[in-house]
C-alpha cells in the first residue's frame, strides 16, 4: 500500500473512531504523520494495535521534541509504529504545553516503551502516567535537571579548566 493511500485509510479510521481526539494528518517526507490529542494517545495506540486491516503491533521508536518558542505547545512526543505483516509505517504526534507534562504511558500495549519512556523522562521531564518504574535511566540519579531541554547547555557548567574563548564557544 503506498503512502498516500495508507494516509487516507488510517485517517478515515481515526476520524471515525476518535472524532474529538483526532487533529490532523500530513505526509511528511513520504511518511504518514497523524496528530492526535494527548489524552487519547493510549486509546489510539490500542486501536491501531487491534485493528484488523492494518495492525500496527511494532513500536519502532518514540522521541520528544522541545519547541520553546511555540507557546502552549512546547513539547511534542512522536511515536513511530510499524505493521510488519504489510510493511507499513506511520508516525503519531501529540503536542502539549510545558505547564502540564503528563502523558499517558503506552507500556501496557508495548513493553518496549518502558525504557523508551524512561529515557524521555530523563532527558525532557515528561511524566508518563501509568508507567511502572519511571525514574532516570541514562543520567545519574542525583541529577536535578532535564538536560535535553533547549535552555540547558551541552557542557557541564561547573568545569573550570576549559576556556570557552579558546574552544570557540
Amino acid at each position, binding site marked *: 500500500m503506498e503512502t498516500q493511500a495508507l494516509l487516507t485509510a488510517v485517517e478515515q479510521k481515526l476520524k471515525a473512531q476518535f472524532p474529538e481526539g483526532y487533529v490532523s494528518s500530513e505526509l511528511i517526507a513520504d511518511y504518514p504523520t497523524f496528530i492526535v490529542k494527548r489524552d487519547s494517545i493510549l486509546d489510539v495506540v490500542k486501536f491501531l494495535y487491534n485493528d484488523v486491516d492494518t495492525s500496527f503491533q511494532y513500536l519502532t521508536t518514540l522521541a520528544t521534541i522541545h519547541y520553546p518558542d511555540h507557546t502552549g505547545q512546547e513539547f511534542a512526543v512522536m511515536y513511530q509504529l510499524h505493521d510488519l505483516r504489510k510493511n507499513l509505517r506511520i508516525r503519531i504526534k501529540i503536542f502539549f504545553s510545558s505547564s502540564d507534562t503528563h502523558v499517558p504511558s503506552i507500556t501496557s500495549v508495548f513493553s518496549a516503551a518502558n525504557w523508551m519512556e524512561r529515557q524521555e523522562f530523563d532527558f525532557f521531564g515528561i511524566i508518563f502516567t501509568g508507567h511502572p518504574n519511571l525514574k532516570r535511566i541514562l543520567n*545519574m540519579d542525583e541529577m536535578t535537571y532535564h538536560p535535553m531541554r533547549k535552555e540547558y547547555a551541552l557542557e557541564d557548567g561547573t568545569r573550570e579548566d576549559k576556556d570557552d574563548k579558546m574552544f570557540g564557544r
Partner: protein
Amino acid sequence: MSTKEKSKVETADAPPGIEGPGFFATRIDKVVGMARANSLWPLPFATSCCGIEFMATMASTYDLGRFGAERLSFSPRQADLLMVMGTISKKMAPVLRQVYEQMAEPKWVLSMGACASSGGIFDTYSVLQGIDRVIPVDVYIPGCPPRPEQVLDGILQIQKLVESESIRRRDTPEYKALLNKYGME
C-alpha cells in the same frame, strides 16, 4: 662446539651485576624491577571503543603476551596495572575510584584513548573530562582509538617506570602527597 646462528629471539637483558662461577650478584631493586616490569597483570577496565582495540592488541597480530602482560586479572586485588580504556562518565567515576582503591600496591594506571585522558570528543555534561580528576595516572596514550602499536608503546613506557621505581614507593613522601591530593591515604 658447533657455531649456532644468531637467534632472532631477544630476551630481556640481565641487570648490571657481578658474575662469577655459580653466582650472580646485583642490586635487589634491579631484580625486583625487572621481575615486576616483565610480568604485569593488567586489569582491563574497558568501557567502549578503546576496549575493542585492546582486544585487537591482545590477539595474535599485536600480541601483548610478548611483554608478559598476558594474564588479565579482573579482580583488582590481584592486578598491577589498571588500564582504563574508553569514556568514563560521571556515573562511572565512583566505580573507577573504588576499583583503584581496592588494588594492592604496587599499582600503576594507564589511561588509553582520548576519552580517558581528557574527555575526548565528548565535552558534555555527563562525561568526566579525564580520569586524572579522580585517580592518579602514570601514562597517557592519545588516540581515538589508539592503534595497537601505540598501546604497546604505552605498555613499554609503563615497564620503564616500573623498572626504575623504588621497591616500596608507597612509603615515599611524594607518593603520599600525590594520593592525598586525590583524597586517598
